[in-house]
């Protein structure tokens, strides 16, 4: 169970999630401080530790549109938040999968800040309103990366397989 700690609308770009002026900061260990840096209140909540692991950032359609900057996924991953959205932009979604930021696609989701949401295999249950919303599962291509623990681990496995085959 997680609480909705922040709600945003359609077409939230990576410029909003991780402003360009912080792009010289690249390491996943250093990016979280700049998450939603221009949304001062939410950023303060995050940096002061007022957001718990498993809390939920709620978005509408096309969350993460724009630049391919991976910091937009790594900065949120650093707080253990789950992003529940009506839809995600492709590159952001792939970066999230690669880095292990949990994303849930619920095209009809309705919830407000403070609501308690439970995420199951097939739906999001809003325990505050008593309503449930179907989710769209990751396709196998993305699920395989998630199951491997992220793309670094997945690529490492592939690399070892390949080198093993070559040297054999």
């Amino acid at each position, binding site marked *: 169970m997680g609480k909705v700690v922040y709600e945003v609308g359609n077409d939230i770009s990576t410029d*909003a999630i991780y402003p360009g002026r912080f792009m010289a900061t690249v390491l996943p260990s250093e990016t979280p401080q700049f998450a939603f840096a221009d949304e001062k209140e939410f950023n303060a909540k995050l940096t002061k530790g007022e957001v718990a692991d498993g809390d939920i950032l709620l978005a509408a359609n096309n969350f993460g549109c724009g630049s391919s900057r991976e910091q937009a996924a790594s900065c949120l991953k650093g707080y253990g938040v789950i992003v529940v959205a009506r839809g995600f932009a492709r590159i952001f979604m792939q970066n999230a999968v690669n880095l292990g930021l949990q994303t849930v696609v619920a095209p009809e989701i309705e919830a407000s800040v403070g609501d308690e949401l439970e995420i199951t295999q097939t739906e999001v249950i809003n325990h505050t309103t008593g309503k449930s919303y179907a989710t769209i599962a990751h396709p196998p291509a*993305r699920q395989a990366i998630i199951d491997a623990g992220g793309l670094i681990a997945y690529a490492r496995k592939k690399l070892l397989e390949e080198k093993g085959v070559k040297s054999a």
Partner: protein
Amino acid sequence: MGATLAEKILARASGQDSVRPGDVIEPRVDLAMSHENAALVINQFTEVYKDTGLDSRVWDPSRIAIIFDHRVPAEGMKTANNQKKIREFVTAQGITKFHEIRGDEGGICHQILPENGYVRPGQVLVGTDSHTTTHGALGALAWGIGATEMAAVWSLGRVLNVEVPATIKVVVTGEMKEPVSAKDLILYLIGHITAQGANFRVLEFHGPAIRSLSTSGRLVLSNMSVEAGATAGLVIPDAETERYLREEAGVTDPIELLQPDDDAVYERVVEIDISNLEPQIACPHTVDNVKPVGEVVGKPINQIVIGSCTNGRLDDISVAAAILKGKKVSHSTRMLVFPASGRIYRQAMDLGYLQILMEAGAVVMNSGCGCCLGIHQGALADGEVALSTTNRNFKGRMGNPNAEVFLCSPAVAAASAITGVITDPRKGN
């Protein structure tokens, strides 16, 4: 059942006879491009090799391109240190397609790749930049990926777990009448299908109006395809593609103009007649908030920007110079011009365009991403408004979330520079 161009390219690159949307493949990569964010790719690449006992060498140093463009020259020590780290990696790994901060070879990645002949029809090209879609203008399937995904490409030479995307066919008919340009067409299309209208899809451009566009204009279409969410934006390669590659990019080896099948299956067909298209403007704060210029004329502008990987090419600068020749940039605004590459800069200098623009009052900046992403040049003040030929107007894009960015063609930008307010270039001042 026939294949779209994207399906043909992906089938070849994955060693299969055919692929269909939804198939999961691992296509081989012909070219892997990064810019300053290579600093993060290097970090993730090292992570992939960690504890494997393997020597961390990239799969093919001749197929990796690294271009310094986002923050050139470095605006601060953090960037300078990233650039230094990348230089050392480039040397250690023997990466050949490296473009430094230089007036002869430097520029924006999405101009450097085409003008140096690195891009060919039928290729698979990935880049750690969302506007990697640009290279679809030459018939290459080119898409943006994150840094970790690039680290996997550097390690293995292929993109892991790619789901073959469906294709939307865009058929453009009619005749484009100056000063209407490719920029107006793509802005119109994005407004029409929305910022997520092509999410997880490929756009494939067809029709006589596309055939008659120069490569420079086609690059604009493919560049901004990502603003409709598209994975890639493909123009079918033709005689113009070959002309560009031979005459402008200096390619001498054989060029294959790979075509989609006539019976290819498209998810959707979008038809546009541009005969009566007006100059278009994308209003704040989304690229799909597009209006004909007539609806926003008279809006006061604080900063006019001409440049970027979208509209910083020679023809764009030429259009601006023609409009500003003998005129002055209004003192109620300021005008910044940043050519997309050192080569374009020098050509614009030789042809006298830069002289004209500077005499009019414009500031000509060095080649690079400049104010496009508001990091170290041309940031806006609170409440200011910019009119720009770049490709994004998201909140905060030009360095300030309390400012506004309108997007337009070079003709609209230049005409507006004279008046200081948004101006229809067909009417002038």
